[in-house]
């Protein structure tokens, strides 16, 4: 990857966050909950997007963002009042910015004139709001010209001093300080002085290392944020100090001609490595400048995900090695090697802590996904003519980045479902004595080792008779089948079932909820529904916090070993022969406390020759196969509980039904991790008999 590619990659990563922030801020504006901070957030986001685009020459994006920014600035200055129409326009403008960013990322062009209508509307507003705001109207549809940009025409001239102490690997990261200076030049006049006192002699120079520190004076009408934003992409906050000077600078880079600047940087400071003269940066400046000399602290760093995954993988290998060591130790008499035994125990603990620590680095709050839902609900409400509000809680709950990424689609489906199917029209709600405005609640919480996400609506609840009728009509259910309410509710997860009266773009094609269930189960999660007629439905999404490790029960079947995810196990028991019943047409069920549970023989399913033939000779593990379903897995013995590192079978071989992955055990053998939901499908398809007669 060359330097420019690296810069592009960083920019688009930043854009992901900035677009999220922009949308959150715009939604707050739309809801009338905006304050000064919200406006500043929106302005800052769009300004940062524009700044990076400018450096990377995404001119079309720069032009549009510039236009958008000018309107936001007028709102910020109180020259424009946010009414529903403007809020809506700004949301559309936010979408257009997102589209232009994605197009730039994909290296494609949006159709000609794609953004013109919105840009024209924004420009009209900006012009109507006065010509003396941040950006001159004539400039609105043009690329940012030097010495203009975000600088406010007519605003007082400010003097900022920037102390830039970049890391030694600045150049290796693909950063070029001249681009930053160029971006600053768009804000106003710039004077730069480099401190070259750390520059070594040629003999010991590493050409790729940065030895220079800079003091940059900027005179501009733009705000402090606009100046800081220039550095957002390239420099960690800790490497940068920006202050506004109230007095005239007396140091090296004061206002003046180029000659003044030239005179200020002494030759001694520039190069001679043997010279111990002080830095060329302003030394006689104000006390404020002197205070800035304090060492900056770095609070965060950006780490490539690949490096992190490599680390996670290594820790996984370490855990496996540690398990092997512990296994070897178990055959030694502990009384003869007490110190070794203690050391191994400590190693086990440290390995576990290390693993937890590394996994924690990968976690992210679900906010990035939740923040996109208010917009979805708003658009759905407009489209369906319903009055809906979305309440969000627990958005700071953290979960593995991979899980966060996979949450988006299921959540969209569930929220669409809640608004389209669940929430009634305002008239219907009023007729039923409910408030005209429906409520959808989205929340996240940690429960045990999992994250549980709830999507609850106060709508009409699942119409079970209609679901049943539709399932029978589609041939998905026998007309005389006896199902519990829970089982009826779960029918909505069947492929091809939709009870929406009309198929819309929103939902009702019957391709949503089954996809939700499949995706969630693929992640080792479960979906549950609780619905009360007339009062609403709640979907529970339970997902593991990480996809890299798993707490499992190690079970033996013949000479083979399998791992059953701990979270799906209800109980294990040795049944009596009289409780096992054969079904007509094949299959067996186990009678447990008034309930018939289908049995799955692991030995038969996977063709293990020396496995136990009868359940009463081995054990039955009652496991939760999917929402509301329970099956009994017949195994020979339970070996023990263990945290295992998940290795993908699909990536290394191919997807196998009933197998979620593989792991390496302490004895070096490979054990397959069961996909219980997949096993259940091998019993009898989607609907199983389980209610006692």
């Amino acid at each position, binding site marked *: 990857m060359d330097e420019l590619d690296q810069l592009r990659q960083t920019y688009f990563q930043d854009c992901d966050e900035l677009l999220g922030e922009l949308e959150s801020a715009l939604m707050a504006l739309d809801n009338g909950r905006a304050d000064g901070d919200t406006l500043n957030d929106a302005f800052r986001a769009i300004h940062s997007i524009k700044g990076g685009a400018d450096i990377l020459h995404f001119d079309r994006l720069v032009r549009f963002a510039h236009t958008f920014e000018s309107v936001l600035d007028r709102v910020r200055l109180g020259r424009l009042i946010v009414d529903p129409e403007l809020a809506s326009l700004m949301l559309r403008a936010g979408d257009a910015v997102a589209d232009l960013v994605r197009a730039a990322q994909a290296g494609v062009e949006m159709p000609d004139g794609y953004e013109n209508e919105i840009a024209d509307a924004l420009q009209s507003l900006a012009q109507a709001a006065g010509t003396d705001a941040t950006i001159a109207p004539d400039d609105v549809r043009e690329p940012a010209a030097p010495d203009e940009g975000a600088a406010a025409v007519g605003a007082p001239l400010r003097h900022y001093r920037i102390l830039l102490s970049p890391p030694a690997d600045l150049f290796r990261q693909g950063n070029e300080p001249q681009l930053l200076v160029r971006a600053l030049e768009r804000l106003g006049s710039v004077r730069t002085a480099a401190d070259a006192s750390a520059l070594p002699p040629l003999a010991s120079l590493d*050409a790729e290392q*940065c030895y220079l520190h800079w003091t940059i004076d900027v005179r501009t009408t733009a705000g402090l944020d606009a100046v800081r934003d220039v550095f957002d992409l390239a420099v960690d906050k800790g490497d940068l100090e920006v202050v506004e000077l109230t007095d005239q600078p007396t140091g090296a880079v004061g206002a003046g001609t180029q000659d003044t600047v030239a005179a200020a940087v002494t030759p001694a400071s520039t190069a001679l490595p043997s010279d111990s003269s002080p830095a060329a940066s302003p030394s006689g400046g104000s006390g404020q400048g002197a205070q800035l000399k304090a060492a900056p602290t770095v609070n965060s760093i950006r780490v490539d995900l690949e490096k992190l995954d490599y680390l996670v993988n290594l820790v996984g290998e370490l855990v496996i090695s540690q398990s092997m060591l512990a296994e070897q130790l178990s055959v030694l008499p502990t009384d003869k090697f007490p110190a070794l035994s203690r050391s191994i125990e400590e190693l086990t603990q440290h390995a576990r802590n290390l693993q937890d620590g590394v996994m924690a680095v990968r976690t992210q709050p679900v906010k990035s996904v939740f923040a996109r839902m208010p917009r979805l609900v708003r658009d759905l409400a407009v489209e369906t003519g319903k009055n809906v509000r979305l309440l969000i809680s627990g958005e700071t709950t953290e979960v593995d980045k991979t899980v966060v990424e996979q949450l988006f689609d299921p959540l969209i489906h569930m929220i669409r479902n809640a608004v389209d199917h669940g929430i009634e029209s305002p008239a219907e709600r009023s007729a039923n004595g409910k408030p005209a405005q429906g409520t959808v609640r989205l929340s996240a919480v940690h429960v045990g080792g999992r994250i549980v996400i709830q999507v609850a609506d106060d709508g009409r609840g699942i119409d079970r008779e209609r679901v049943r009728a539709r399932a029978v009509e589609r041939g998905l259910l026998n007309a005389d089948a006896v199902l519990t309410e829970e089982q009826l509710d779960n029918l909505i997860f069947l492929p091809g079932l939709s009870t929406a009266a009309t198929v819309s773009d929103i939902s009702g094609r019957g391709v949503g909820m089954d996809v939700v269930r499949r995706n969630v189960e693929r992640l080792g999660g479960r979906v549950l529904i609780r619905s009360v007629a007339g009062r609403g439905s709640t979907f529970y999404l339970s997902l593991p916090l990480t996809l890299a490790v798993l707490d499992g029960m190690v079970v033996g079947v013949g000479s083979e070993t399998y791992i059953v995810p701990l979270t799906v196990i209800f109980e294990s028991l040795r049944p009596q022969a009289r409780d096992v019943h054969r079904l007509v047409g094949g299959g067996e069920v186990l009678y447990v406390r008034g309930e018939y549970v289908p049995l799955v023989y692991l030995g038969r399913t996977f063709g293990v020759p020396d496995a136990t033939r009868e359940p009463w000779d081995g054990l039955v593990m009652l496991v939760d196969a999917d929402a509301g379903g329970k099956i009994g897995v017949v195994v020979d013995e339970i070996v023990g509980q263990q945290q295992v590192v998940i290795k993908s079978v699909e990536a290394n071989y191919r997807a196998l039904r009933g197998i979620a992955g593989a792991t390496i055990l302490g004895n070096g053998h490979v054990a397959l991790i069961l996909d219980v939901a997949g096993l259940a499908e091998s019993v009898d398809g989607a609907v199983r008999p389980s209610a006692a007669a």
Partner: protein
Amino acid sequence: MSLSYATLSHFPLRIGDATILRGILRIVPKGSGRKSRTSGDSAESRGDLVAGDGIIALAAVADIAVARDVTEALRDALDRQTPVVIDAAGVEELSTPCAQALASAAASFASANVAFAFRQPSDAFVAAFNRIGLFAAMMQWTFVE
């Protein structure tokens, strides 16, 4: 752009001095192994870092790869106490790593009392030093016609 501020007085030798030119010619002779090694894939493939006829000509796009090559070439020249002229006429973009390497070289050559000069710096070359904040330092260097 004319650079009338060339301070030849600091330069112990004069252009036209046959000894110097022969010395310069020895820096990176045409077709030497050095060219392919120091030019590397990036520079040589662009044909920009042409180090022939004894004068180091900076590439049009003097990026970090060029900085590496120039550093190595100058280091060798300094080891041999060989005077150097940097031809900056064709520079369209000068990276900060490159400017930094030249600044270090200028100081090191001066300390070793070995001649080091620049020839025909382009506007982009000068503008880059200004932007980087090394303009004043550059003005102390020797420029030759």
